[in-house]
């Protein structure tokens, strides 16, 4: 039987519309159900694929059905596909014991490109993520996915890294099982490759 460090265990998956946020959350949720947990997932994706901030809350319990939203300050794990979005979520949801796994590659909001807003200094931004969390792991998931063959697999690469975090609630095998069920053919191969590379990247000490 799976042991949960916290009950409910709260995971936030965040990024920008089009980065495969919803799918990543669904994969994590399904793997948790496989392990015999009760799961609730809340998705905020009104802006999906249109460049807006997107987040999913995955909540896992061995006792009862949690609500689909995490209270502020109560996230235990943050999986972020973009550094600014990771910080935005960490400021609101990180608490006493929060681990973040995130891609440090910035994606500039339109307002920044148009010169009406400023993107924070990347080093300071990452430093703040570290200050808000007990462990922050920066993994270049989009680069890994491009190397694996398609940038769209960045979400799966980051899930690979997530499975290697100390105390991760899911193992590499748990997630691989879901991938094999969820995808087939060349897409499965691509995702498996990106996933394995993600696992490897986390092992290489992306931890900061």
């Amino acid at each position, binding site marked *: 039987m799976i042991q949960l460090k916290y009950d409910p265990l709260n995971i936030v998956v965040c990024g920008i519309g089009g980065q495969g946020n919803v799918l990543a959350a669904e994969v994590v949720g399904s793997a948790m159900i496989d392990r015999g947990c009760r799961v609730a997932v809340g998705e905020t994706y009104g*802006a999906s694929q249109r460049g807006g901030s997107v987040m999913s809350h995955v909540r896992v319990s061995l006792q009862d059905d949690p609500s689909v939203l995490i209270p502020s300050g109560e996230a235990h794990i943050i999986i972020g596909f973009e550094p600014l979005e990771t910080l935005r979520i960490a400021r609101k949801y990180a608490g006493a014991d929060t681990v973040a796994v995130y891609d440090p590659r910035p994606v500039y909001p339109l307002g920044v490109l148009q010169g009406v807003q400023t993107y*924070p200094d990347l080093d300071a931004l990452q430093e703040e993520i570290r200050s808000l969390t007990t462990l922050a792991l920066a993994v270049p998931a989009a680069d890994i996915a491009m190397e694996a063959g398609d940038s769209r697999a960045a979400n799966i690469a980051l899930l690979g890294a997530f499975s290697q975090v100390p105390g991760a609630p899911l193992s590499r095998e748990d997630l691989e099982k879901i991938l094999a069920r969820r995808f087939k053919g060349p897409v499965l191969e691509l995702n498996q490759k990106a996933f394995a590379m993600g696992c490897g990247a986390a092992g290489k000490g992306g931890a900061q």
Partner: protein
Amino acid sequence: MTANAPGTAALMQGNEAIVRGAVEAGIHFAASYPGSPSSQILGMLGKIARERNFYAEWSTNEVCAIQACMGASFAGARALCVVKQNGLLCTADALHCGAQQGVKGGLVVVTSDDPSAHSSTNEFDSRWQAQSASVALLEPTTMQEAKDMIPYAFELSERVGQIVIVRLTTRVCHGRGCVTLGELPEENRPLERVREWDRMVCVSYMHGPMLEKLEALRGAFNESPYNHYSGPEGARDLIVAGGTGRLYAQEAVKRLGVQDRVGLLSLGALWPLPEDYILKHLRAAERVLILEEVDPFLEQGLEALAGRERLSLTFLGRDHGALPKIGELDPDNVEKAISVLTGAPLPEKRLPEGAGKTPLPVRELTFCAGCPHRATFYLLKKALRQEKNPGIVVGDIGCYFMAGQSAGQYGYQACNCMGSGVSMAEGLGQLTHYGLDQKVVTICGDSTFFHTIMPGIVNAVYQSANMLLIVLDNSATAMTGFQPHPGTGLTAMGDRARPMDIQKILEAIGCEVEVADPFETVQAEKTLRRMLARRGMNVLIMRQPCATLKTKERKGKKPRVWVDQSRCIGEGCGCDKHCSRVWGCPGNTWDFSTGKAQIDPVTCVGCGVCAKLCPAGAIQVEGGEEA
């Protein structure tokens, strides 16, 4: 979704749970027009309709959908109509007259409200429509309830011969939770022939029977399994929750440590108000906190009820300041409200030293990389700026709604609901005969064209308005997830149909029509200018498939777009960062270290339009195979 495996648990989205509930209820008929957050429901029903021997359609609009369901109900069919909040308002006449007419086979309307307007232009509370039309309304909190309430709603509908509404909210539609499956019917109940003397007609004397049906359900709701109470008997602090608030409250009372002294009354069968059941708990209470999405519907109902019974209670809720008047409930605002109710202190949440100081840029919504709408609005703004005054543009509902912000160069000045554009433009276009000295332009998408624009076009042509309608024909209902519409040649059940030709329809109505490709920027701009100069009702069809649709269907490699750094003059160019700042595609980014343009290879879809606009000719497009 169609596995006959009663007792099995599955992780289901709320929308999926509705589909499963419909299958367990043995529906014969389903009709919908897409609208977030419930768009997925009919898409999924269409895919399994044949297997389960029912009919499912994407109707041209919500009025068609609900009236089709009423027709089906007349032949004894169980019919499910799915709409979003705004769609329910579109059906208002049909809903009110239909309620006075009554139904034969069960008719359930699933409506999805979008608190905080995550994927809508506005927040709306569908419960007022149930009250106004004198029909019953149920609201689930969990995915399990969402599934179970559909067969229950059909049973209620057939028990009294009346429409029943099931209200969902975004957190139910787009949330996922564990659902235990129920049994599937062996086969659907046979249809009934409509007899010569059968009548289902809305006439004034049916007003009384309509009210009697509603009263009959009030009795049933006093006993409904979806209304329940937890907590100590006779609690003086009472929370009344309809919908999502219940789960937030359950967790918050534990966090605040007040579970031993707060009662939680959950109402799932909530209109007509189960007055006797509610009063039983109100009589013991002193303070009452109401948790509900959007408007103080229950709050006002319960306050009136308490007043009628001369109970002296303190109410807290959206009307009384404990909760914000607008926006959705969440664990934080619910916890705060319970703290106000009980006096229990809120747990302290503090950011570490130094954190949270730098302001973070917001991410404005924008058109996807390679979206044809960006090109259309770019050209429109350019052409209108060079007129003697910048003209008037009125918008409509679809992805292009975003054109009102920086995504579309602040491309229109007014927009309210679907169909608003063409008729507002007709009004303005009439005033050009009375001295209004401006070009009048409106825009609509292809799905919206069929939904509500066509009557407006007939009106504009017949009344000789001076205006230009731009139809953004991207072959998709893109905003809600690519549902088929009459122009696509596909149906919800995956059959082929003869696609309706927008151009021929427009010509038959009597419009002057031209077609342009917004990606052929020079040619499209010329056509646009020519049409702006004409009088009468002119239509320009901007034809270019949706970029997301093209990416989905692409088999070969996408073209590689890159910036030749030796040609890009960067900040010294004088183009004012035309690609990333003015054109504003997310694929066009800026290298702040070198002060030059670059392309984000992840986001760029390879449309190459930016290459045509770069004054230095620095953007290069290479290779790529046609989708």
